[in-house]
Structure formats: structure tokens, C-alpha cells
């Protein structure tokens, strides 16, 4: 049985374990119909031209993990931003780990999707927001919607700000030979609310893991959301990240995506602007080697006047790695005075590495500022020579230049300890001691 058939037929079993009377279940039922109709995307579709899911579909993934697995904090501490105090929502093989988590209901709700879907007190919010911005016809999103049951639920009321950043961590223990995970996150920041989230998916063995994640983010007027995605997983872990963001006037939502690992990673990052004076910012650093594959697909839909979007993605590709950047910007006719900037700069450090980069601008308004630029290059020989004349060997000089190239994306990271971590990951990934403390 192929993966699609297995998933569709598993839906009946899934229904035995959820409240089919809940209105969300109607959404699930619709979603599985859509997935059954469409199946997995293939490379004939423009959006999947450079990323194939064929080999993943041949793997016999477990859809429902068998046992409840535990982890010792000391064994996974390194994956947390343990330098500072954080709220933590932690899942092990898709199951919530209360032992490793630190949730709260103190003025804000930082807890679980399963709770939000089952407790009456959350029903009103779920009715309004659940699946409100996520696509109803993109097949992988609807696959996630069909099986949506667990994930992070974060609700920050008007004028509130959690005391500390929130970490969402997903561990895979390898207890299953191959595991499919489908976390579903809902994040709501009401007027003037502010929050910071760090998300990470981490497999702890070499067994296959495929995560198909959907995150919906709603930022009301003046809300500020910082979302950091740390993608540094092991060789046999693949991730399809579908993030949908709906913004109201004067809100600022920044998503930073740091892609350093994993087998196949696809980031579908979609912004919808539903107000004026909105700032939508997407930044990415991608550093790949071996046969790793990362595909960034961004969409910003400017639907109101006087808004901004900023995209800055930097990539460094070595060995046989492959990168894709596709940045789509739609400016509706009504969205005058839009400022949309997009930048994608890439360095190829191996003859066998590949990058496919494509800006896609659809502009229907006439008074807008839109700019885009893609570059693909090697390291600047003059800059290398400069460093060498100071006595820095070529290899270290190259690393220093790549570090500098990636570094300026980090300027907007607002958690200093995270910035330090990412700096170190970049240095490690480039494989060279830089001779000074970052």
C-alpha cells in the first residue's frame, strides 16, 4: 500500500480517538477528502518542480506511534535554549511530554492543541481561528488538518506579553522504524500582545522521520510576533513546514528560518496582510552539505495599502546539496504604497551543489515600491586575498567570509542567547574554528 492509501485508510482508525462531534471534525473530514483527491504533490506541479517527495512516499511510516516514550532532560538539554529560562512545549514521538514541558495559564495560555480542542473554555477561539488561515486545498496542509489533534496552542490576550520566550520542541526517539509526525500549532496574539517563539524538530536516532507540520499565526492590531525556526536535524529526518500568518494593522511578524540540517526540508511560509501599516519580515540562513535539500517557498499577499514586506535569505551550499528559493509577492490593486523587498543571495562552494532561485512578483497596484534581487556566486577572490595577506590561511579565510555573509541576517534576532547559539551553529557548520569567541 502506498503512503497516500495508508493515510486515507487510517483516517477511520483516527476517528476512534477523537471527538467526532466537535465542529473541528467537520473540518478534518473535508480535509481528508481534499487529500484523497489530490494526493501528494509531484514534480509536474510548478511549486514542486525542484523538490520530489517520491522516495519519502516509499517508506512505510507509522502514522500512530505505539508506546509513550520518555526522555531524560540531560540527554536532550542541548536542544533547548537552556542558557535562559523559557516556557517549553515538548513532544516525544508526537505525544506531549509534561515532564519536559513548562506550560502556563497565568494571564496567557501556553499549552496544548489537544486541550484547546477538547475543553469548552477554548471552543469560542477555536471556532474563530482554527483552520481560518491555513489553506483548504493545498494537499499537505489538508493532510495535516485531517489528522490535527496535537501541537502547541498559544493565546496571548490584549496588551499581554509572556514573561519569557516559548520553545516548541518535537523529539523523535526512533522507537518506530519510520515515523510520520503531524503537529498542528495555533498561535494567537491579540491587540498589542507580543511574544517570541523558538521551534525545533529533532530526531535522536538514524531511523526515518517525516514531519508534516502546520502552524497558524494570527497577529491582531499592533501585535509583535517573533518566530525562530531552528532546522538542524539529522540525516534521515525530513520536514515539511507549512506556516500561515494572518496580520492586522500595524502588526509586526518576523520569521527567521535557520536551515542547517535534515535530509529534505520544505518551508512553505505564507503571509496574508489584512490591515494597513503591517510589517512582514522573513529571514533565512541556509547552510547545507552532503546531499541535503532545502526548499524555501515564501508568499506575501499584500491586500491593503501602506504595508511592508522584507525578505532576506542567504544560502551557502557545499558538496552535493541543493537549495531552492521561490519568493512570491502579490500586490492587490487596492494595496497602494506597498513596499516589498526581496533578496536571495547564494554562495556555491562545490561544483556539485545546486541552487534554484526564482522571484515571482504579481503586482496589480501602480504606486508601489517592489525590489528583488538574486545572486549566485562563489566567494570573492579579492576578499579572500585580503584576509590571506593578514596571515589567515585560505580555508579559515573562506570560513570567515561565509560567516560574515550569513551573519548580517542575524542582526534582527532579538534573543541574544539564541543569536549566540545560531552564530556558533554557523561556525560549526562551516567546519572551522574562527579563533575567537562569537
Amino acid at each position, binding site marked *: 500500500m502506498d503512503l497516500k492509501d495508508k493515510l486515507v485508510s487510517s483516517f477511520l482508525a483516527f476517528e476512534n480517538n477523537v471527538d467526532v462531534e466537535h465542529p473541528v471534525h467537520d473540518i478534518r473530514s473535508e480535509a481528508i477528502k481534499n487529500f484523497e483527491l489530490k494526493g501528494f504533490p509531484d514534480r509536474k506541479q510548478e511549486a514542486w518542480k525542484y523538490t520530489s517527495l517520491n522516495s519519502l512516499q516509499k517508506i512505510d511510516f507509522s502514522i500512530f506511534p505505539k508506546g509513550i516514550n520518555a526522555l531524560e532532560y540531560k540527554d536532550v538539554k542541548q536542544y533547548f535554549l537552556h542558557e535562559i529560562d523559557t516556557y517549553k512545549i515538548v513532544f516525544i514521538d508526537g505525544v506531549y511530554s509534561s515532564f519536559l514541558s513548562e506550560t502556563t495559564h497565568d494571564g496567557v495560555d501556553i499549552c496544548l492543541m489537544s486541550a484547546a480542542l477538547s475543553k469548552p473554555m477554548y471552543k469560542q477561539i477555536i471556532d474563530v481561528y482554527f483552520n481560518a488561515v491555513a489553506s483548504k486545498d493545498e494537499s499537505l496542509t489538508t493532510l495535516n488538518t485531517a489528522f490535527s489533534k496535537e501541537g502547541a496552542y498559544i493565546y496571548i490576550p490584549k496588551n499581554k506579553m509572556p514573561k519569557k520566550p516559548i520553545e516548541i520542541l518535537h523529539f523523535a526517539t526512533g522507537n518506530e522504524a519510520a515515523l510520520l509526525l503531524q503537529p498542528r500549532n495555533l498561535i494567537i496574539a491579540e491587540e498589542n500582545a507580543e511574544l517570541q517563539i523558538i521551534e525545533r524538530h529533532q530526531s535522536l536516532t538514524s531511523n526515518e522521520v517525516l514531519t508534516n507540520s502546520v502552524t497558524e499565526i494570527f497577529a491582531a492590531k499592533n501585535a509583535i510576533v517573533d518566530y525562530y525556526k531552528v532546522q538542524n536535524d539529522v540525516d534521515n529526518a525530513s520536514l515539511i513546514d507549512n506556516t500561515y500568518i494572518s496580520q492586522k494593522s500595524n502588526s509586526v511578524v518576523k520569521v527567521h528560518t535557520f536551515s542547517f540540517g535534515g535530509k529534505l526540508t520544505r518551508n512553505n511560509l505564507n503571509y496574508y496582510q489584512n490591515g494597513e501599516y503591517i510589517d512582514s519580515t522573513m529571514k533565512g540562513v541556509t547552510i547545507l552539505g552532503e546531499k541535503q535539500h532545502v526548499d524555501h517557498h515564501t508568499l506575501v499577499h499584500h491586500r491593503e495599502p501602506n504595508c511592508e514586506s522584507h525578505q532576506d535569505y542567504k544560502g551557502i551550499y557545499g558538496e552535493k546539496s541543493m537549495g531552492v528559493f521561490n519568493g512570491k509577492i502579490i500586490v492587490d490593486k487596492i494595496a497602494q504604497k506597498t513596499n516589498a523587498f526581496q533578496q536571495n543571495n547564494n554562495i556555491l562552494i562545490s561544483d556539485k551543489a545546486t541552487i534554484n532561485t526564482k522571484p515571482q512578483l504579481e503586482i496589480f497596484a501602480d504606486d508601489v515600491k517592489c525590489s528583488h534581487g538574486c545572486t549566485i556566486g562563489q566567494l570573492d577572490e579579492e576578499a579572500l586575498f585580503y584576509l590571506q*595577506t593578514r*596571515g589567515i*590561511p*585560505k580555508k579559515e579565510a573562506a570560513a570567515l*567570509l561565509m*560567516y560574515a555573509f550569513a551573519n548580517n541576517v542575524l542582526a534582527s534576532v532579538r534573543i541574544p542567547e539564541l543569536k549566540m547559539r545560531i552564530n556558533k551553529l554557523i561556525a560549526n557548520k562551516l567546519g572551522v574554528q574562527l*579563533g575567537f569567541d562569537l
Partner: protein
Amino acid sequence: MLKVNNLHAGVEGNEILNGINLEVKAGEVHAIMGPNGSGKSTLASVIAGKEEFEITEGNIELNGVDLKDTSPEERAHKGIFLSFQYPVEIPGVSVTNFMKTAINESRKARGLEDMPANQMLKLIREKSELLEIDRKFLSRSLNEGFSGGEKKRNEIFQMAMLEPKLAILDETDSGLDIDALRIVANGVNKLKSKDNAIIVITHYQRLLEYIVPDFVHVLHDGKIVKSGTKELALELEEKGYDWLKNESVV
């Protein structure tokens, strides 16, 4: 210290240097002048080991050792320093951290341990005072957003930190106002000793009023067409380069 013997060099078959002979002894300051495109910067880059240039004839010796097949970093470890006309910007790496990396790489090449932090700080303080460099400047990203003057001053600061045996200053005066020029020149003069040598590459005589050369060479079409003492620089300032170009044709 430095001996350039019948040096022919170029890029992809285009010869830029056509047989340069030059000897620089310890304690000397040499100025290399010449019109645009005469090969001044190429000569500087070739001495510093830029791989883009191919040496087709002749050689370069440092203290009697042929520098053939010696990488730019190895030349730096042997004491050659090149101050760039257009220093490169390195965002995210502070001036201080860059200097630490450069100094410790040189020490590593000589089999020494990293310089202790307190010693490094002392050295940085001492040398930054010499170039009248503000503390805040040292924590800024290397050359990023620096003015022309700041970049050049930073180049000489790096020279002061690395204490080279042979320093080549390529158009260090370009982009400097008179105050900055004085500070840079003072710095260079204080670094001058009987054990090191300096080659000043410049288009104009102006810098040579502050850094007084022992010898002046005029480069034209990749060849030294005239050598003399500091008076030659004044003569060039007065007459331009054309009379020398004609001379070289004869």
C-alpha cells in the same frame, strides 16, 4: 631584504609587469610612482602573492629565499604586509576579533601559543593610540560603513599590530583629507625602524612630504623607467609623467 629580479607577470597571457628589478634593504623607504595602469598595484599584489597573477619570468626573493609557490598567508607569516587601496568589508567580525584571528594565525604558523588575552588587549590599546583610533571603533565590524579615511587608518593599525618586516602601502593616501593623511603618515613613521622596510605606492607626491622616501622609482608600462632620490618625486609633480614616457620609448 626584498629583491625583485627581472619580474615578468600577468593575467591570462596579458603581461602587466615587463621585467622589474628592485632591491629594498632593511631601514629603507622606497616610493613607487607612475601613471594609472602602469602596473603599480599589480607589483604590490604579486609581491604579496596574489594567485591570479602568473609569473612568467624572473623571481622575488625575501631575505635570499625565493617566494615562488609561497601562499599569501605564508608570505604574511614571513613578514610581508600589504595595505589595500580598497580594504574589504567583513560584517559581523569586529576589528578586535579580526586582529586576534590574524595575530594568532601568524603565531600558530611560527609554532607559538595564542597570545594571552591581557597581552593582546595591551597591544591593541598601544597601537590604537598610535593611530589615534577611538575604542568604539575597535568593536565595529571590520571596514563596514567605514569612511575612506577610517579604512586607511585601520589598514595602518593592522600594520602596527602585525609588525611586518616589509610593508607595502598601496595608494594609502587616496581618499584621505589632510588631517587623516597626517595621522596615517605619523603612524607609518613611528613604525619605521632600521630593521624593516616600506614601499609606498602612490600617484601623487603629497604623501611623500610626510613619509620621506630614500628612493623613488617611476613605473611605466610595467617597467621601472627611472629611479632616483626624493627630488625625483618633486620633478614628477612639476613635469608630470609624459617626459618619462617619451624617454622610455627612446
